[in-house]
């Protein structure tokens, strides 16, 4: 297929879409008719497209129960309220947990009768836990969004 043929085919396809969807001008319609008369491949595609259009035109989206609309705005409003609630709760919890952990570690290190080894071990546990939490949060917020294989069905 020459570049010229490729351009003509692309043009014919767009004209076919416009004709099917009622968005074609009279001049374009004449142009399409000319192509259909002279090109059997385009004619075949045109017939196939008409069949598809006929099938989809016979379908409609199912309507939900009418009461859905009466409760719709209330549901949205409740969500917005809950969203703010969850945000404040999460932020507050993180600050409280961080502060509590800091105070606890501080208290452990100030205990004079505890040997150095358990103190270091406790510090290790606290640090390891923080790394794990940060890693999981980062995966949820960043890595998953940029995963190049996310479209691959496993």
């Amino acid at each position, binding site marked *: 297929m020459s570049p010229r043929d490729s351009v003509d085919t692309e043009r014919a396809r767009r004209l076919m879409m416009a004709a099917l*969807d009622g968005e074609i001008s009279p001049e374009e319609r004449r142009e399409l008719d000319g192509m259909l008369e002279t090109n059997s491949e385009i004619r075949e595609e045109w017939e196939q497209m008409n069949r*598809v259009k006929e*099938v989809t035109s016979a379908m409609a989206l*199912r309507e939900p129960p009418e009461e859905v609309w009466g409760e719709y*705005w209330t549901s*949205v*409003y409740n969500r917005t309220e809950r969203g703010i609630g969850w945000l404040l709760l999460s932020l507050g919890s993180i600050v409280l947990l961080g502060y509590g952990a800091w105070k606890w570690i501080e208290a452990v290190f100030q205990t004079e009768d505890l040997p150095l080894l358990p103190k270091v071990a406790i510090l290790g546990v606290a640090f390891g836990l923080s790394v794990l939490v940060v890693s999981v949060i980062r995966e949820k917020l960043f890595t998953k969004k940029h995963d190049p294989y996310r479209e691959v069905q496993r």
Partner: protein
Amino acid sequence: MELALQDGTGESDELLVRRVRAGDTPAFGKLVERYMRRAYYAALGLVGSHEDALDLSQEAFARAFRARERLDPERPFYAWLYQIIRRLCFNFVRDRRTRRRGIESASSWLVQQATARSTDNPQKTLERREARERVTEALESLPDRDREILVLKEFEGLRYREIAELIGIPIGTVMSRLYSARRRLAAALEVKE
């Protein structure tokens, strides 16, 4: 169908958006009531289940409200909302595929048009149900973007200019995508016949 609508209140989207930005929650309620049906049907076409479409369209409004500071009163509200809806729906469909969970039922989100139902007899009813199930399955087998463009054109009845504005692509690309989507749908229907 215009992207910016006015209802009986006579308030334009632009005015309502300005009020929402100023912290007027009832103004947002008016926008929700104005666009809830379109938002729901857009989500239904993309995810194919009533419960999920309801949940995702409501979530889209809630997110729009949370991000109201970024709303531009000069731009169509629904086009902005639609971007949130499609992102939520595409992510939802992707996660559902990953979890290998089937959708609620093969034929629950499409119905035969009233004009095609006029001559009722048991044989015809059966044939129509089979046809509807075949189309539903074929549509669900399409890539998300093909399905989206077909839903906007065939079920929401938007014009090319409106689709281009909603998705943010040139009109020529709308036509090319429609062509590819219809070709794939034709192939999917032929395989199932």
